[in-house]
């Protein structure tokens, strides 16, 4: 029963209980239900459905998404609006597309490592490659493992 506290009495409580009595009083079944019909012969063979996330990312805990903007990566077939799947667990290698932190700003480039040092190479001749020097701080934020692109929304 509802026990209103000592002082303020609940005006609506009596209405509330009365309402309850007007309806049919049912004993609850404690949420249990019985499955009827035939068991599925396929049930023992259930497999997990194919997941795009699993395909694109090796390590979901270390995976982040960013959206590409601009035309600086078109020669690598990366276009504005592409969803870049970044797996931070990957060690960056020469030839990887990476998200870099260049003087505390984000940029997407191809990482090129040669005997002469490292460069960040854009995928568009309009822009110049950036050579890694002592004065220019470049951090690899993560390696782009794959992309997702939609043709229709």
């Amino acid at each position, binding site marked *: 029963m509802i026990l209103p506290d000592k002082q303020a009495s609940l*005006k609506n409580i009596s209405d509330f209980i009365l309402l309850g009595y007007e309806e049919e009083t049912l004993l609850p079944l404690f949420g249990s239900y019985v499955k009827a019909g035939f068991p599925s012969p396929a049930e023992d063979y259930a497999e997990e459905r194919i997941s795009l996330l699993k395909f694109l990312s090796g390590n979901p805990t270390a995976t982040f998404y960013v959206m590409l903007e601009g035309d600086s990566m078109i020669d690598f077939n990366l276009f504005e609006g592409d969803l870049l799947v970044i797996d931070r667990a990957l060690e960056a290698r020469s030839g990887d597309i990476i998200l870099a932190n260049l003087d505390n700003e984000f940029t997407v480039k191809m990482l090129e490592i040669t005997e002469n040092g490292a460069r960040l190479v854009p995928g568009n001749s309009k822009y110049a490659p950036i050579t890694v020097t002592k004065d220019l701080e470049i951090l690899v*934020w993560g390696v782009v493992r794959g992309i997702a692109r939609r043709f229709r929304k």
Partner: protein
Amino acid sequence: MTSLFLHADINNCYASIFRIFMPHLNGKPLAVLSNNDGSIIARSQEAKDLGIIMGQPLFEAKPIIDKYGVKVLSSNYPLFHDMSTRFHHTLGTFSPNQEIYSIDEGFLDLGNFYNTDLNQYGCTIKKTVWQWLGLPICVGIAPTKTLAKLANRIAKKSTKAKGVLVLNTEAHIKAALNIIDVGDVWGIGRQYANKLRKFGVLTAWDLANVTDSFAKKELTIVGLRIVKELRGEACADLEIEPPAKKGICTSRSFGHPVTTLDLMQEAVATYMTRSAYKLRRQKSRCAQLSVFFETNPFNPNEPQYNNCKTIKLPVPTNSTLELVSYALLALKAIYRDGYKYKKAGVYLDDIRPATAMQGNIFDTIDRGKHLDLMLAMDKLTGKMGSGVIKLASEGTDKSWKMKQDYGTKCYTTRMEDILVVR
């Protein structure tokens, strides 16, 4: 010594999380605000160095903030929660025996790792969290949880430790305990610390060397356990399943004062929805609920009215529908017009496990149907975020909602908020 624990926590957690996605904040002083932007609850190292104090009200810190250009941001709990989950997952890849202690702290039971180079192991964990998530952490490893936490504390301060400290020999443990103030021992609060100082117990080492009967008499059985843990005798195992809460409270200050019953009902319904969700998450029901509210006590010129109403429920429940309808009944009974309300909340108690339940022959509620509905609601909430499905009584106005003047994006949980890069 047979046991071995690892304690890891994120340095300047909230500030560090923001910096992953906003690298221009690197090296700059940063302060993070509480709900409603009231006070400072997290600071970057640079902000700490400027003298900004934990818990300081924003207006009080304003002179320093303006003078040094301290960046100020509102809390972003969806982002914090996601990054915290990733942090604990990453730790969990190192040992299956894991305790999630708080949003930014966790323990691992390293059990029989004695043949491993423990310092190396701690460094690997630190390096992995940094690479995967961009979060700086510190690591302490020791024979008990209390000592591991203490090792971490030293690892954070000492430049020599480089963020990882192993205490597994008696000499090392003694040296460490000697430099820790008794008030900084995990579980020793300010009052106990003051009391202990009067007995000449000043350091953790002093505390480790009191007699058992002294510890029991002055600090109760809980204190004795701390003393034993300091001596290297493990008394606490990992809490792998967090204990079910005995009371669940959701209360918030309003962004703007609330002056109508309609808005108050929206707020109470929303808080109750949140509490009921928490209740189901821990697989419990409650048999009693309270609704409370208050005006702003810091505005003494305005009329003041605070009240609280408690209702015992006929049948213990965790159904949002039921709990909200009772909460609104309670609210209506005590609500008065003519006041500017500052804060409201709901509190659930008399909490029992959801499995054992005594029925009531006057029960008119189809509990099976409620259960199905709640399962569906929780699924949607889990999948698409809180607020995606709600009761009509939660309303759509929400003008009472949290003030967040320095908001940031939910970079990892909302598609429309992800980083855009060139």
